């Protein structure tokens, strides 16, 4: 699967409180959450982000609370994927579990600037910066994680594990 989108660049240690402040955690609706995504750090993000755009972060992206609302708000904003130097552990699992693609590549994350266009090949794990022409290889996923991605997220993966057929 190939993605292409404009870069929104953020720094190190982007925490889940700035991704989606706790005051909005009275809903689980992706669109409602998306309307407030990143607002304490960059008020333009929620209004200006375009479907397919790519978030780029530094190290420890998604640190802090376990709120799944954080990746849900980003997915709700129709961000196509996140590239970062590294991800916080719980955020990494949450993003994979809900089917939001995330790629770890310190070089690609450092080199990307706001407004750059990145092309991402999720199958091969490559990221190309169209401004510089440079291509980067993201860290491979562990086998369990690949199985979840292949199933389409943790809910369908769990159905497979338990042998539950989807009706309708």
């Amino acid at each position, binding site marked *: 699967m190939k993605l292409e989108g404009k870069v929104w660049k953020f720094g190190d240690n982007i925490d889940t*409180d700035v991704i989606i402040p706790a005051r909005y955690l009275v809903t689980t609706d992706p669109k409602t959450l998306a309307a407030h995504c990143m607002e304490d750090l960059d008020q333009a993000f929620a209004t200006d982000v375009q479907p397919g755009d790519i978030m780029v972060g530094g190290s420890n992206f998604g640190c*802090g609370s376990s709120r*799944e609302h954080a990746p*849900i708000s980003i997915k709700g904003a129709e961000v196509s994927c996140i590239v970062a130097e590294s991800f916080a552990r719980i955020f990494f699992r*949450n993003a994979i*579990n*809900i089917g939001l693609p995330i790629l770890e590549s310190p070089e690609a994350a450092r080199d990307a600037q706001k407004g750059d266009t990145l092309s991402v090949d999720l199958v091969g794990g490559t990221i190309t910066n169209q401004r510089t022409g440079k291509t980067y290889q993201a860290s491979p996923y562990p086998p369990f994680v690949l199985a979840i991605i292949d199933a389409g997220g943790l*809910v369908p993966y*769990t159905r497979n594990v338990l042998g539950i057929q989807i009706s309708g």
Partner: protein
Amino acid sequence: MGKTLAEKIIAAHAEDVGEVSAGDLVTVKTDVVMANDITAPIAIESFNAIGVGEVYNPDNIMLVPSHFAPNKDIKSAEQTRTLATFAQDQALKHRFQVGRAGIEHVVLPERGLVLPGDLVVGGDSHTCTYGAVGAFATGMGSTDIAFAMATGTTWLKVPETMKFVYNGKRQSWVYGKDMILRTIGEISVDGALYRSMEFTGPAIADLPMSERLTMTNMVIEAGGKCGFMPFDDVTEAYVAPRAARPYTPFYADDDAEYVSAHEFDLSEMEPQVACPYSPDNVHPISQIKPEKVDQVFIGSCTNGRFEDLAIVADILQRTGREFHPDVRVMIIPGSQAVYLDVLREGWIELFTLAGGAVSVSTCGPCLGGHMGVLASNEVCVSTSNRNFRGRMGHRDARVFLVNPAIAAASAIMGRLAHPDEL
């Protein structure tokens, strides 16, 4: 080669595996699956989407309304009702209701529901708190919790372990809170990313359980997956009278493999302050500008236990002082059991006469939920665990994280203050 605590407890819960080592990916049985009023609604939604019908084990799922409870508005009321309805429909053994519970990380250890050698997954990042009683406990998101509710298992990567050794005699007004803040200041907010943190040394042996819980609570603030206190007499004395079922202590091997070791000398450590906007922006209090304070919050899963409130009561009684008239002082016991103990000591009267606002147990202000949300540019001194931008209210409010003694002194002086100044 010997094994760390994380390796031993994970191995004991892994299916068809004799032993495990850091880096291994394993499926493990869970002893406790926890979620709160923010994470459980999504977990229940995902659980229903899986379509398995009944939870794997109704005796080990604990849904605790804590964050926006007592319900702060209609939407949060709908969320806590989702928990209560699910608990009734699935006939969950353990029920947690406002007035009978409190903050999950105070309530579960206090009732002996999380025990040494347990493997606990919780839909809350501070689930790592339970490492103080010797459980492997880690925070996860809601869909992971749904998987654990449906299957009784979860998947884990066995973490590498960092060792933290605390030597020397603690100075007055220095607590577990200062030890963990100093540690996070040294290694930074991603210093323990994906790793286990084992705390040990002579100063840990002397540390009471309340302060051990404070330290393991903030493991996540260094990016850690889990943290452990050693099982010893302090653990046994705390756990034995509370344990709701049998438990098995584990001990790290002397020749276990650690990725790094860090030593701290308590004889030279003064009270620490984490300044805005990160828990790793830590400085000794003597180096901090004595800023004017608008609000002081004493409570949370970090410092909302009886012993924490005892520090505040002691300072008020010893000095005979009141809180500063310009400061809102929110004092929130971490559980209703703590509330009752504090009530019986006469401290609710003491705190109220001093000008404090004492509330029913809730996470409330720690996450900017209710009961003490901050306005723009306000300064809050807090015994909680996070001071990220926007965490306790307005994005421009500033939060300083401290121990309960510094919080009490600051509440009295109306500015960041050391108890020796009183």
